[in-house]
């Protein structure tokens, strides 16, 4: 099992969600986050005062998938999230030891 964390542009979220569902992913957890990588922030001006906003709004999608689904899911995210500009985000993969469904204590890939 692998945890896929994708930090993406908010504007690409709907497309990424659909692509993941099409790829066979059944569950996901989504969070509004703010952060920055190499992308520079933007400036906002209120009554002549400039504010440089260096943390940009992003969306973090977390999914845990069975091993055979890792590459299809990553491919789906890459395809749907890419605009080609700086700020498209990143994907992180982490090994997951176990998963437990709280309702009936199923374990492992069956719990996903």
């Amino acid at each position, binding site marked *: 099992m692998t945890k896929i964390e994708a930090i993406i542009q908010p504007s690409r979220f709907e497309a990424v969600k659909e692509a993941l569902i099409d790829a066979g992913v059944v569950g996901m957890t989504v969070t509004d986050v703010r952060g920055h990588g190499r992308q520079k922030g933007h400036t*906002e*001006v*209120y*009554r*002549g*005062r400039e*504010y440089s906003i260096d943390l940009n709004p992003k969306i973090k999608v977390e999914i845990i998938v069975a091993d055979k689904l890792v590459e299809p899911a990553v491919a789906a995210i890459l395809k749907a999230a890419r605009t080609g500009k700086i700020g498209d985000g990143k994907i992180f993969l982490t090994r997951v030891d176990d998963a437990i469904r709280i309702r009936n204590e199923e374990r492992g890939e069956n719990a996903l």
Partner: protein
Amino acid sequence: MRTKLLAAVFILGVALAAACPLKAQSASSSASSSASSSASSSASAAAAPSPVEDRLTRLEQKTAEAQSAGDNAWMLTCSALVLMMTGPGLALFYGGLVRQKNVLATMMHSFALMALVTVVWAFVGYSLCFHSGNPFVGGFGYSFLNGVGSAPDPDYAATIPQQTFMIYQLMFAIITPALISGAIAERVRFSAVAVFMILWSLLVYAPMAHMVWGKGGLLNASLGGRFPTLDFAGGTVVHITSGVSALVCALYIKRRVGYPQRPMKPHSVVLSVIGACLLWVGWFGFNAGSALAANGLATSAFVATHLAAAAAALGWAGAEWMRNGKPSVLGAISGAVAGLVAITPASGFVKPMPALAIGLVAGVFCYMMVALVKMKLGYDDSLDAFGVHGAGGTIGAVLTGVFATRAVNPIFKDSAGRELPVGLMDGNAGQMANQLIGIAIAWALAIVGSLVILKIVDTLIGFRVSEEQETAGLDLTQHGEEGYNLET
């Protein structure tokens, strides 16, 4: 201990307020009954009137009643409109501009004054403004609204009950101190603000309103003032006094923690847009209502007000567009308010095109005050009460002297009743001196009065909250609430 004392004073005040209307009401009803009895006795005094004369008398009476009904309906509507400027207009406008943790405290600064100033006004405020006293302040003759009933006071407004005039003027007295709260937002103790505002409305607002609008006031243009200053709806009385006091307060209580290094973005420009639109609408009551009748002058002021607001919105947003490459929404609404401020003293004296010019100038001028001058000088006028109201009010009072014309409002007449020129372009260059005297007195009174009151309140209560409280936010520390509990 101190809080208990304050609460006790408040309860005592409310009890007094509850007890007094009895006296005031009996006085007003006797005044109105004596007025009606004198009217009927004068009608019967003509011995055995002919049927035609009798009918004529009745007709005149009915005509007067009809005009009074129209004027009174309009003035009560205007009173409500002006109250709407403070709540929710100003409360939303200012509330949106602060950070989320201070939204309630900022709105409370406006809302609390709707209650506090009302009580003060009924006790002595109205009397100090509008009873004939000396050239500088009114007397105590109308204390507890004694003698303020349904009979008109012809010196102020001959066709509406004096009580209507009183409640209309109250709404001005409410919004004026509320404007100051923009300069001190996000860092002050609520109790200190409450006491400051009460003292300010008695020591700064009342004398200024009396000087400009009260019988025998030093600056009164229509009731024989020594230096007749043109101020139709409160450019000096409302906007210069509040704006300059705002600057004094901002300098006295100093900057917010972290200003200007840390970002302090408005938490919801959306609220501010709604507030500004309500201010714009309410301003028709403020300016057109200052005609004190539903007449042509009211229409003229209404039109001037609207045109100035529009031009100023374009002026501010346009200046910003040229300088930053984008016209901001906050800029457009701030510009509209600046234009409304500047046209306030002029609204009942100028034609539509000068009104547009005043608005445009005010929009650009206030933008420069807020975006350039404030940055240079480094004071923290949190919500630009001085940059908009002090600067806009001053430029408006000057331009009133330039553009005022007898074609709109023949306020000056010679002994034979001929209309005399009013403003500079009308042929009365001397009016500029009177305008400058009025402006200077408003500035001086605001500076000295505010400093004295600040010192008193700061010594007795302490104006600023502690740094921890400021960081945690005033909503939580001053009121024990939060503005947005969306997920509970």
